[in-house]
C-alpha cells in the first residue's frame, strides 16, 4: 500500500453519481446538424481550412492549429459545411465564437486513418501527431496535450492519470474507466513513453470501486507496472495540485507548474484519446458526457463534438420544470447561455437544474467570521478575508493575501452558514485586478510614447534655436564687417527678423517650461 498524504480542507457534498451509472455509455445518434467551434481548447483559435459548401469526411481537418498553444479541429462526421460564422458557445465569457456548421450526409465516411506504433517515433513527432489529432485535456481546461508533453530538459518522475472525478453528479470518467480501461492504460503507457516518466499512478476516488478494479485488470493483462491508487473521496481531490499532493506528498509551488517538481498530470479520458489518436489514427471527434440532474434518464452518452446540447438533453428526457442547464459539475460548472450551444471537447457533464433540485440560495447574511470556509479551503487561504477585501475593493490586499492561489473550487461557499456567494466575489476581484493591470500596461506604454515624443520635440526646438543663433551671429558679424551703412529696406528686414527671432525664443521658452511642469505633475501624480 502506498502511503497517502492529504491536503487541508475539502468537503463532502452528496455525490449524486449513482443516477447516471446505472446503464452503460450509450452512443448518441447522429444529429441533423453539428456546430463545431474552432476554439475548443486553451490557446490560439484554430484557422479554418475549409470553405462553405465543402464536402468533408469524418476526421478531416477543418481547423489548423495556429500558434504554439493551439490544437486541430476536425469534422466529426462526413457531410457538408454550410456555414462558417460566429455562434454562441458554452464559454464563461458568453461571447459568440467562430464555428463551422456541418450537415451530416449520414454515411459517417472516414478519411484515411493512419495508426502508428509510438515506439517508432521521436517525441517531437508524437507531439505533432497529437496536435494534429486535436488531442486536448478532457478534464475541463482543454489544454492542448502536446504542449504539456513539451517539457524540455525537465525530468519527470511521476506521471499521474487523474480519474478522481471529485465533483458531484459527473460520472463520465468513471464510466469510461469501467468500460474502456484497456485503452486508458495503453494511452497512459504512451504518455509515459513520451515523458520518460519513472512511475505511473492513477488517482481514483475510493467511491469508484468498479473503475479501480477495471483499471487494475487492464494493467495486469497488459503486463505493465502502473499503480492504481484509491484516494479518499473528498472534494476537490481531483484538482491537479491537490491530487499531486495526495499521491506524492509534493506541493506544486505557487505560480509554478507540476513539471517543475517532476510530475505531470493527465485526465484518464485524455489518455484514452491519446490511444485512439496514435494506435488507431482517430482524431478527437467525440467524448463521453454525463446527462444528469433534472432528467428522467440520467446517463452517459458518447456524443460527437458539435452535437447541440438540446439534442442530448432530449435523449436524457429533461423534466418539464427544468429551468436551466449547467455545463460541468454543481460546484464549478458554468451556466449555459443557451441550450442550443454545441458539445465541445471540454463538455464533461450537463446538469439540468430545477428549483426543486437546486433551490435558490438563501439571502446572504454578513460574514460572522466563523471560519468554516477556512476549514474547507484546500488552498489554505482565509476566504473570509479575501471576501472582505473583494467587497471593499481593496484589491491590493486581496492580492497580498494570495487571491490568485484560489482555485475557485467553491468549497468555501458550500460551507458558509451566511450563504455568501464567495466565489463570485473572488472572480470579480480577479477580473478587476487583471483589467487594471492591463490598463496600467497600456498607460505605461502610452507614457513611454509620450515622453519619447516630448523628447523629440524638445530636441528639434533646440536644434532650430541653435541654427537661428548661428545665423544671427553670422548676420551680426556681417553687419560689423560691413562698413557700408544699411539701406532703410535692409534695416527694416533686419528689425523684422529680430522680432521674429524674439518671438520664436519666447515660444520655445514657454513650451519648455510647460513640459517641465507637465513632467513634474506626472511624476508626483504617480
Amino acid at each position, binding site marked *: 500500500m502506498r502511503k497517502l498524504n492529504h491536503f487541508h480542507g475539502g468537503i463532502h457534498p452528496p455525490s449524486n453519481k449513482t443516477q447516471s451509472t446505472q446503464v452503460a455509455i450509450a452512443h448518441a445518434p447522429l444529429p441533423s446538424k453539428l456546430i463545431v467551434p474552432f476554439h475548443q481548447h486553451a490557446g490560439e483559435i484554430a484557422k479554418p481550412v475549409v470553405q462553405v459548401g465543402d464536402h468533408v469526411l469524418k476526421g478531416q481537418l477543418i481547423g489548423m492549429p495556429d500558434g504554439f498553444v493551439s490544437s486541430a479541429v476536425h469534422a466529426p462526421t462526413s457531410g457538408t459545411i454550410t456555414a462558417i460564422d460566429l455562434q454562441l458557445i458554452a464559454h464563461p465569457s458568453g461571447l459568440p465564437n467562430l464555428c463551422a456548421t456541418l450537415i451530416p450526409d449520414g454515411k459517417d465516411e472516414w478519411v484515411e486513418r493512419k495508426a502508428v506504433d509510438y515506439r517508432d517515433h521521436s517525441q517531437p513527432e508524437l507531439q505533432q501527431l497529437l496536435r494534429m489529432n486535436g488531442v486536448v485535456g478532457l478534464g475541463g481546461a482543454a489544454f492542448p496535450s502536446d504542449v504539456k508533453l513539451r517539457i524540455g530538459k525537465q525530468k519527470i518522475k511521476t506521471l499521474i492519470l487523474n480519474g478522481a472525478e471529485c465533483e458531484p453528479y459527473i460520472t463520465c470518467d468513471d464510466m469510461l474507466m469501467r468500460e474502456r480501461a484497456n485503452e486508458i492504460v495503453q494511452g497512459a503507457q504512451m504518455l509515459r513513453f513520451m515523458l520518460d516518466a519513472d512511475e505511473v499512478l492513477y488517482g481514483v476516488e475510493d467511491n469508484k470501486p468498479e473503475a479501480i478494479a477495471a483499471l487494475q485488470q487492464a494493467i495486469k493483462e497488459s503486463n505493465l507496472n502502473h499503480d492504481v491508487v484509491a484516494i479518499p473521496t473528498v472534494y476537490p481531490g481531483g484538482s491537479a495540485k491537490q491530487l499531486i499532493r495526495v499521491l506524492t506528498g509534493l506541493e506544486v509551488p505557487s505560480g509554478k507548474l507540476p513539471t517543475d517538481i517532476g510530475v505531470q498530470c493527465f485526465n484518464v479520458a485524455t489518455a484514452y484519446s491519446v490511444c485512439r489518436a496514435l494506435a488507431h489514427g482517430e482524431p478527437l471527434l467525440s467524448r463521453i458526457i454525463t446527462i444528469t440532474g433534472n432528467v428522467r434518464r440520467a446517463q452517459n452518452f458518447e456524443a460527437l463534438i458539435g452535437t447541440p446540447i438540446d439534442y442530448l438533453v432530449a435523449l436524457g428526457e429533461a423534466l418539464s420544470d427544468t429551468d436551466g442547464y449547467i455545463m460541468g459539475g454543481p460546484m464549478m460548472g458554468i451556466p449555459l447561455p443557451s441550450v442550443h450551444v454545441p458539445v465541445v471537447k471540454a463538455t464533461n457533464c450537463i446538469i439540468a437544474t430545477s428549483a426543486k433540485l437546486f433551490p435558490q440560495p*438563501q439571502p446572504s447574511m*454578513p460574514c460572522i467570521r466563523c471560519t468554516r470556509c477556512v476549514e474547507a479551503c484546500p488552498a489554505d487561504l482565509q476566504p473570509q478575508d479575501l471576501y472582505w477585501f473583494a467587497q471593499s475593493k481593496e484589491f491590493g490586499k486581496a492580492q497580498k493575501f494570495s487571491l490568485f492561489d484560489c482555485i475557485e473550487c467553491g468549497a468555501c461557499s458550500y460551507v458558509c452558514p451566511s450563504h455568501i456567494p464567495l466565489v463570485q466575489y473572488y472572480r470579480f476581484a480577479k477580473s478587476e485586478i487583471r483589467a487594471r493591470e492591463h490598463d496600467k500596461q497600456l498607460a505605461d506604454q502610452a507614457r513611454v510614447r509620450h515622453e519619447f515624443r516630448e523628447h523629440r520635440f524638445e530636441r528639434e526646438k533646440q536644434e532650430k534655436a541653435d541654427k537661428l543663433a548661428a545665423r544671427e551671429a553670422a548676420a551680426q558679424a556681417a553687419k560689423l564687417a560691413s562698413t557700408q551703412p544699411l539701406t532703410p529696406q535692409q534695416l527694416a528686414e533686419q528689425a523684422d527678423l529680430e522680432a521674429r527671432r524674439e518671438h520664436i525664443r519666447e515660444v520655445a521658452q514657454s513650451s519648455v517650461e510647460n513640459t517641465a511642469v507637465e513632467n513634474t505633475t506626472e511624476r508626483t501624480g504617480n
Partner: protein
Amino acid sequence: MIFTPLISKPDSVSAIMLKVLLALLPGIAMYVWYFGPAILVSITLASITALSTEALMLKLRRRPIAPFLKDNSALLTAWLLALSIPPLAPWWLVVVGTAFAIAIAKQLYGGLGNNPFNPAMVGYAVLIISFPMQMTHWLAPQGLVLTELSFTQQLDYIFQGVLPHSVTLDALTMATPLDTLKTHLHLDESVQQILNMTIYGQIGGHGSEMAAWGFLFGGLYLLAARIISWHIPVAYLGTLFVIAGIFHLVDPTHYVAPLFHWFSGAAILGAFFILTDPVSSPTTNKGRLIFAAGAAFLTYMIRTFGGFPDGVAFATLLMNISVPLIVLYTQPKVFGKKDKS
C-alpha cells in the same frame, strides 16, 4: 442568474446561534436549581430588550429587520449578559446593559459580524463601572441564608424594588465566591480557612460550581457539534490552570488552587461561550491560542491583583482589541507557498 456552486450545506447563522443557546441550557438549569428562578426573569427581560433594541436600530439604520431578528445572535448576547448580572437585580439594570450592548457595541459598529468587541462583555463592563453596587449583590444560593424570597417576592423586588417587611437586601445576597476570597485574603486569612466558609462547595462556589459544570457540559457539546474549535477553550483553561498552578505551588496559603479558578466566576462560560464568539475572536488557529492564553493571563491577574470581582469580561475586551494584530501575525502558509525554496 444561477451561479456555482449550486449546492450548499444546510446550515445557517441562525441554526448555529440556536445551538449555542441550547448549549447554555444545562448551565441555566443548574443555576435555577441552586439559586431559584430569578435568573429566568433576567434572561427573559434581556431577550425582550435585545430583540426590540435590535429591531429599532435596524430600522434606524434602514436595514432589513426580519432576517436579522431571526439570526438569534441578539438573543445570545442577551443570555450571556443576563448570566453575568446578579439575578436579583432591579429590572432596569438588565435593560440598560442589554440595550447598550446591542445598540452601541453591536449595531453602531455595523451590526452582525462587524463588532470588534463582544457585545455582552461591553454591556457587563458598562454596568459594573456605572453601577458597582447593584452588580456585586449576588443572590445567595438557596439554603445558605436564613431569609429566602418566594418567586413572587423576587418579582416584586426586581420590578418595584420592594422587599418584604423587615428583610434587607444584605440578608439575601452575598459577594461572589471570588470576591469573598479576595476580601478575606486582604484580612490576612489563609486560603484554607476561607474555603471552609459555607459559600464554597467542592471546587468553587457552592451552587455556582454546579452551574459551571452545566456550562462545561454544554461547551463540550459545542465542541462535539463542531460549532467551536478546541483552540480557545483548551488554551484558555490550560493557561489559567498553569498560571494559577504556579502561584499556588509557590504559596498555597495566599493563592487558591487552579481548579478553583476554573469553577468560579465566568471562567468556563468564558472559555466555551464568550471568548469563542467568532466575530470578535481571531480567525486563525494559532491566533486563537494566543488570544485565549492572553485572556487567561489577564483573567488571573485581574482576579488576583485587580479591583474587580471577576476578570473574564475585561480580559475578553482587552484581547478583543488585539485581534487584528494577532490575526495579521498568525497567517497560515498558503498552499504552494509552504517552503521557501
